[in-house]
């Protein structure tokens, strides 16, 4: 066959390509375009309405000298690291326990996954009451006779972020558990048999054989958790509205408050650009390692 008769690469799977045009446009115009617009206007002094009046890096100088923004970043780091670690660890342990061919597995799975069906707002309100010193856990324990018992994370500036973390874990670990369980079920039974024949203890089998084999599942879980961390907002609003004081503020809330409440779009855009930047800093090296590696292989 001559070269000219080979189908043009561009027209291969033409139907699929045509069908994906709306999504490509959405991605380009709304996601990329919207982000570029936001970054551009973060260099202006826009107040309530966007205006192209450039002021250089002023908004960023102000942002990084604002105590509330610094507190937000610190909170996000604490919340992020802990929620990542605990979600993965608890999710995996629950999945491994469920995988022991126990009775009523369906029931347990439903119980663990159920909180995920609730929105962050509902979760936040539920935990706001549970952690309320007068009506919640502290009140109940004191009612049982332990008068000096004290557990009021939402009213203590130093530990309030952990109160939010508890609610987030309660809501999110069920999903991670299900992902892990699916991963565990995907491991061939023969691997377990082989490990047993070789006399490897169960714990070691999990750590050195099963977990490395579950790498794709872990990456999926990681992306889902990480996305949830950066955008955490509604949970904080429902539980503490950023209080006491500014102790539980998060970046997303700063963006919202300054864009809409303080009527200072420029400042809000600068903050959201910083959030975008932090996501890019995490995603790009990871994507390079993940997808760049395949080409070499």
């Amino acid at each position: 066959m001559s070269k000219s008769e080979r189908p043009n690469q561009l027209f291969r799977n033409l139907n699929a390509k045509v069908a994906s045009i709306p999504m490509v446009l959405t991605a380009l115009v709304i996601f990329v375009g919207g982000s570029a617009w936001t970054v551009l206007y973060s260099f202006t002094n826009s107040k309530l309405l966007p205006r192209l009046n450039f002021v250089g890096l002023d908004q960023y100088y102000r942002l990084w000298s604002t105590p509330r923004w610094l507190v937000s970043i610190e909170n996000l780091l604490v919340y992020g690291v802990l929620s990542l670690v605990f979600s993965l660890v608890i999710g995996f342990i629950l999945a491994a326990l469920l995988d022991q061919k126990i009775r009523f597995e369906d029931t347990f799975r439903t119980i663990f996954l159920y909180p995920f069906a609730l929105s962050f707002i509902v979760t936040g309100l539920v935990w706001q009451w549970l952690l309320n010193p007068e009506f919640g856990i502290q009140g109940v324990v004191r009612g049982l006779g332990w008068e000096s018992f004290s557990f009021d994370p939402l009213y203590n500036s130093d530990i309030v972020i952990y109160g939010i973390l508890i609610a987030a874990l309660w809501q999110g670990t069920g999903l991670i558990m299900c992902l892990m369980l699916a991963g565990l079920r995907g491991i061939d039974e023969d691997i377990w048999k082989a490990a047993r024949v070789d006399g490897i203890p169960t714990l070691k089998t999990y750590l050195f054989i099963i977990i490395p084999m579950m790498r794709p599942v872990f990456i999926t879980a990681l992306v889902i958790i990480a996305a949830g961390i950066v955008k955490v907002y509604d949970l904080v609003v429902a539980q503490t509205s950023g209080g006491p004081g500014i102790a539980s503020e998060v970046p997303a809330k700063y963006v919202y408050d300054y864009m809409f409440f303080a009527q200072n779009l420029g400042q809000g855009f600068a903050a959201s650009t910083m959030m975008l930047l932090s996501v890019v800093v995490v995603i790009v090296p990871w994507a390079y390692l993940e997808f760049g590696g395949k080409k070499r292989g």
Partner: protein
Amino acid sequence: MRYQFMTAALAVTTALPFAGPAAATDLEVTHWWTSGGEAAAVAEFAKAFDATGNHWVDGAIAGSGGTARPIMISRITGGDPMGATQFNHGRQAEELVQAGLMRDLTELATRDKWAEIVQPKSLLDGCTLDGKIYCVPVNIHSWQWLWLSNAAFEKAGVPVPKNWNEYVAAAPALEKAGIIPLAVGGQPWQASGAFDVLLTAVGGTDAFLKVYRDKDAEFAAGPEVAKVFKAADDARKMAKNTNVQDWNQATNLVISGKAGGQIMGDWAQGEFQVAGQTAGKDYTCLPGLGLNEVIATGGDAFYFPLLQDAEKSKAQEALAKTLLDPKTQVAFNLKKGSLPVRGDIDLKAANDCMKKGLEILAKGSVMPWTDQLLSQDTQKQKEDLFSEFFAKPDMTVEEAQKRFAEIVASAD
């Protein structure tokens, strides 16, 4: 056929009464009046507006102004304006007006002689931009009030204080009796507002104007304002056990005698009224914390977004008229606990506290409030600072004052 026609005709006639008078125009009005006393007050507006043959569609947004304003603004800028909306007159809607999104009411105002009926004059100034009037003030709300629970002081065995200094002195006795001396809810604007009140009461009206109107950062860092921060430090210590968020929950602590008092605007009065308490007997009010009796002419106003629909525009005019009507003003303000914007109406039914307010108003001791003087951006920075200051006992007074001066220096 004929039978079908008959039933159709019948259906139309039965449906008509529910549709109301043919000329009725629905006008959506958004506001953030959702606590018990506020809801009762806004119902008076709705009743009066419905009586003009139009229909008030209530668009209450819960969660106080901080939550409601962004929603209102994004609806107006997003091209889905409501018929009318509440704002605090002053600078909150400034840019919306500049962008031409709000209706110019000057013509209506001249026709109905608003300039003559609205008292004090500075209220209308808050609605005016470049000589044009853009809003209808409906009440005067002043922040400078201290609400005290008589029952709490009786329980603690100390007389009800007559000013802020006596109150601070009585705090240990209250604490000993298991009462929270001062209730300050967790919402940021409450801490920030309480400080502004202390600034007027302890520092004086001139100090307030120097800081917020002239934006004198040097003065804000100086010894006179340091005195105010000292008072704020007292307030923070007195308030440290308040575990509530909303202002009306904090007011409720005072009503139920669990807290000694609260620094809050006169909108708190509506809550005392709903709870069936009597001024002077169950609770005491001290305007200007008993130190500096002035009334700030902040308050609520209605703005009217520019609409294309002629019918609705006409209904907007009817609403503007209704809001300033003497009868509506009396009915609304009695329920709301605020002062009317007209000097020519008779508030016989006013209670002790409102009478105190009217007296101060008649004496002309009025001053502008932060809503008129500061941009929302500055207000928010202030709120961030004071909510942190009130929640963090280890933040020193000096550090807070330094940051306050920085905010004043960059204020616009």
